Structures are given as C-alpha cells and as structure tokens.
C-alpha cells in the first residue's frame, strides 16, 4: 500500500438478516459508494443464504466465483474490496460450526482455517486487511487475566501468520463492548509479534467507549494497520458494556438511556469525533493504508455515504493530499 486510500463499509445497508439480499440492491449500493468518491468497499462477514456478500462460499454461490464478485465490484467502478470484518463468534452455516472462541485453544485451528479462507478471498478481491473481533464482549467472558491475554495473543499471531501468507494483514478491531476496552488493548498488543498482528482503529467505537482515538494513534501508531472513520453520537459512560449480552441490550437497544443510534457517518450533526484531528494524528504516525468510512446502521444509507463523501472530498482528503504533496 502506498499512501492512504478511502473505502466505505457496506454493513450500513443491512439492518438485519434478510434485508439487502438482492443483486440490484448491492449494485446500487456499490455504485453509490463509488460515486461518493470511495475506491474500495469493506465487507462484513455473514453466513447463510441471505448473506450473499458474507463469505467466500456465498460469493461463489451468488457470483459464480470470488473472481466473479471481483468483476461485479469493478463493474460498479470500485477498485477493490479493501477489507473484511469477521467475528469468530459468528456461527458458520457453511461449515456447520457454532461460535468459535479465541480464548479456547481447541478452537484456534478452526479460527485459523476460517481466517485463511477469508484472507485468500480477500487477496483475490484486491484487499489487504482482515479485521477481527479479538475477544467477546466484556459481559460475556471472564475477566482477562494474563493467561487469557496470552491465549488471545497466541491465537491472533497464528491467524496473522496464516493471513500474511496471502498478503493480508490481521488487525484487531476493538469495539466499545469489548473485554479489551480500556487498558487491555496495549496489554494484548504488547504480547503479539508486531510483524503478525496490528490494530484497527475505529474512531466511533473508541469514542463510544470513552477512549480518545487520537491518543490511541499517538500511543500505538506504529501498530495501526487499519482505520475506520465513523462518528459516535453517545458515550457509554455508565459502563453498561459490562452487562451480559450487551450486543443486544446496549448496542442495539441503546442501554438504559435507549440511545437510538450510537454511531453515524463522519460529520453528522452532534458527532463527537474530530476527524480532522484524527487524520492529522494518522499523518503524524505516517499511516499508510485504508481508511474505511462507516455509518454502522443508517436509516438512510445512501445519504450517509454521500454526506461522508462530502466530508472526505472537501476536508479530509485535502489534508492527506497536502501532506503527501509536501
């Protein structure tokens, strides 16, 4: 990768499992991403017949092959699938497996195998980063002691080693519900080989978790392998992330405050992230890679993509290009 490239995450178009399954919907979404000024698209792992873009088997089933999907993406005037987000706790109907845990040593071979499949497909699609959810939610796993951190490090190093054979980097994506929120992230990073495992900075997740993304970049800039730009509309300052099943009770339902929407596209009214400051911090860290813009569920996906495109075109890309020109 040479320089910063801009991509957009397609997950905002799919509010729930049996929406956004038709080919023409995908085509219109990809064209919207393209004309908004992005050159790549980020996929989110999914499984089963209503997830045509969810995994390599579904791509092959729907487009003839992974290469067939690559042609479809390029036909919509996008260069590449930049990246793929995968949580091993998601079951796989294609493999008939349940949730896999990176804390369980017995699951590691299957996790590595699954990551390898994704990385192989991603490489064929022009992508370079597999984002992984490194561990479950804080309310869903035991507190992470040194031994647990060691097991996580071993798992993701094994994954990183496997994906790198396909030219794909493995980046840890820590969300605001993660058991790795707060000071666990540096502990895990410190235990992993920097040539095998990197960090995905998600501005919205960090901010909702009460963590300044700029400080993360300043502290761990040399480990940042992937960036997601999404805005946060609220902060979990009551630490509701510690509750069990917080994915539904907090992330989806909004917790005790019933936050209607934690996240939105960059630049949204009321957004808490200073994207110019984050961009400057990335430049200071000599970041070189994809910046994937997200809304992470939007009532108006196309509008979100265009509004994000406006911010990138008029404010953020000029910052980057100014630095690169200098």
């Amino acid at each position, binding site marked *: 990768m040479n320089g910063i490239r801009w991509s957009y995450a397609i997950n905002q178009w799919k509010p729930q499992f049996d929406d956004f399954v038709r080919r023409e919907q995908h085509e*219109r979404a990809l*064209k*919207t991403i*393209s*004309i*908004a*000024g992005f050159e790549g698209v980020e996929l989110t792992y999914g499984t089963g017949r209503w997830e045509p873009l969810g995994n390599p088997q579904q791509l092959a089933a729907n487009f003839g092959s992974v290469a067939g999907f690559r042609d479809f993406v390029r036909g*919509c*005037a996008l260069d590449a699938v930049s990246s793929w987000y995968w949580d091993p706790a998601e079951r796989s109907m294609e493999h008939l497996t349940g949730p896999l845990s990176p804390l369980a040593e017995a699951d590691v071979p299957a996790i590595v195998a699954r990551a390898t499949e994704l990385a192989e497909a991603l490489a064929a699609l022009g992508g370079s980063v597999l984002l992984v959810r490194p561990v479950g939610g804080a309310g869903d796993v035991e507190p992470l002691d040194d031994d647990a951190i060691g097991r996580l490090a071993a798992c993701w190093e094994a994954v990183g080693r496997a994906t790198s054979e396909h030219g794909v980097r493995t980046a840890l994506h820590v969300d605001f519900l993660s058991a790795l929120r707060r000071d666990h992230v540096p502990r895990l990073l410190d235990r992993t080989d920097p040539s095998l495992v990197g960090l995905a900075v998600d501005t919205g997740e960090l901010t909702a978790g009460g963590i300044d993304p700029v400080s993360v970049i300043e502290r761990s800039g040399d480990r940042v392998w992937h960036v997601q730009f999404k805005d946060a509309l609220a902060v979990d300052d009551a630490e509701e992330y510690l509750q069990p099943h917080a994915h539904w009770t907090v992330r989806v339902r909004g917790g005790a405050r019933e936050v209607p929407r934690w996240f939105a596209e960059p630049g949204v*009214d009321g957004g808490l992230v200073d994207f110019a400051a984050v961009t400057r911090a990335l430049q200071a860290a000599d970041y070189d890679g994809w910046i994937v813009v997200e809304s992470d569920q939007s*009532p*108006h*996906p*196309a*509008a979100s*993509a*265009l*509004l994000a*495109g*406006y911010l990138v*075109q*008029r404010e953020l890309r000029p910052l980057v290009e100014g630095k690169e020109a200098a």
Partner: protein
Amino acid sequence: MVWTKWSYMDHWVTETPQGPQPPSFNRAYMDRYVKQLSALGFTGFDTFFFYLPLYAGMYGGVPGFERFLQDNGFDKITGIFSAYPSATRYTAPHVRETHDRIVADCENTLRMCEGLTGVENFIVMPTSTHHQTEPVTDDTIKVVADLWNRVGALTLQHGMKTTCHFEFWGAIRTREQLDTFFRHTDPELVFFFCDTAQHTIAGVDPVQMFRDYSDRCTGFHFKDTKNVDEHEAYRTPPDPELMAPQVTRWFYEMGEGGLVDFPALMKEIVASGYDGWLTVEHDKAELGGGSYAEATAVAKWYIDNVLAEAEAEARAELETAR
C-alpha cells in the same frame, strides 16, 4: 474533456419527523441535501419558482441562497422552472385573456432572481393539462405561442432564455404539435428544453427532437421512463402524472433499464456543439421505497461511467472527422 456542467433540478424529497418533505423543511435538511449534491459533483442548481420565496426567507434573499450553494461548491443557480399546469380563470396559456396576468406573474418571478450570478434558463410548461385545453387546434397552439413570445422578450431583458419544457399530459405533446408550436414562436425569443422522459412517454423520440431543434435547445432534464402512454392517460383528469390508473410510476433515474437512449443523446449533444447545462431530474423517486439520495447517486454514477464514455467516443469521432 469531460462534461462539467451538470446541474440538479430541485425536485428532491427527504424523510423528516413530519414525514416526506422537501429539504426546505429546515436549514439542517437543506445543508444535508446540498452537501449530497455537492459530493456527487453537481455544480448547477435549477429550482421551482414557488421555492424562491421560501429560500429567500431561509437565507435572507435568493442571492443569499445562491451564496450558500456556492459555499458548497456550486457555480450558481442555473434555471428557474415556472408553470401553470392547471388552467384557471386567471391563468391558462391557451386563453389569451389570461396572458397579461401570466406575464405579470413571470415578472414577479424575475424580480425574485435579481442579484443572482446569472440564471440562464427560464423554464416553462407551455400549456396546462391536455384535458383542460382540448380540442388542441393550430389556433390553440398559436395563442399559446403568442404568450411565450411575450414572456421570451421579457426574460431576455433579465438575461434569461424562455425555454419550453413539454409534458406528456400537456396540450402540446405530439411531434406535429411541437413542430407547430415552434413554427409559431420566434426562434430569438422562445427556446426548447428537452425532458427525455416526458417526450418518450408521449411517443416522441427525444434524440430526434433534439437533433431537429438543437439550434433552439437550451437545456435538458435527463430522466428515464419505462412506459409509453398507450392508454391515453394524457387525457385523464385531473392529473395523469400522479393519478393514471394504468401506470403508478412514470419516471426513473438513468441506468435502470428504461426506454431513453441516453448514450445516443449524449453523442448527439456533443456532435451538435451544444455547450450548456445538462440537468438531472427525479420525479417521485420515493415510489416503491426508493430514496432520492440513492436515485441521484445512481444517476450520477451513470453519467460518470457510461455517458462519459459516450461523450469521449463522440469527441473522438469529431476529431477524426476534422
């Protein structure tokens, strides 16, 4: 060279807490609307005459609204669309006695545009509905033509060309009627505005229409349709565009498999030497669950990826022919 003069016809509807509304619902909605158009690369903005007082109120005058557009990357307001689609006792283009009132109304609209950078087109629907006007005779068309000759002279004094946008449900709709109208109007005063979908629905080939009237053409609405009016919907009161029983949605964005041959039109435009604005319009894009944002994005994608190629081919052909 790639065509840079793409404008957007202000016909957008957005979801608000009060249901679907135009973005003029409030300034925050306007901000988001204009930013989306800007992100797509539109640099011209056409709007309706009835929005001008609203924008003047929101931005301290229509020039203030134009400055807001310019702050977001637009060149200027490019066209004002005026119409009397329903004939009344006061305004009916086919009734000569109402002409003074229509001209006065146009003067009011023109006054609202004072201080703008340079609106180029004063776009008009030449007639009211067909069912209110019929029978449409040569004499009827002559009366209508006389009105727009008067308005054309007036708007030129304000630097704008009066340009006629025909509806499939208007009283002048067939190729023969169009030819009659243009024969009766002064080519120095009255111009042609080509709405690709409206002509197609009426059974008129917009590409041929442009080919024949390119010297009088001052603008386009690039929009598509999937239906020709085969059931005389145009004669159906009260509103064939919204209430025809056979067709619930007439208009579609480009690139959705409609009937208009846009690449052919683009090549014809390049070959003609036309160098004005090309305008994208959507009309009822929300029908069937669609969104204006996505419809506009898909249309602009089509422009940048399909029409740009047609344009390049046409320019190469011109170069070869030189």
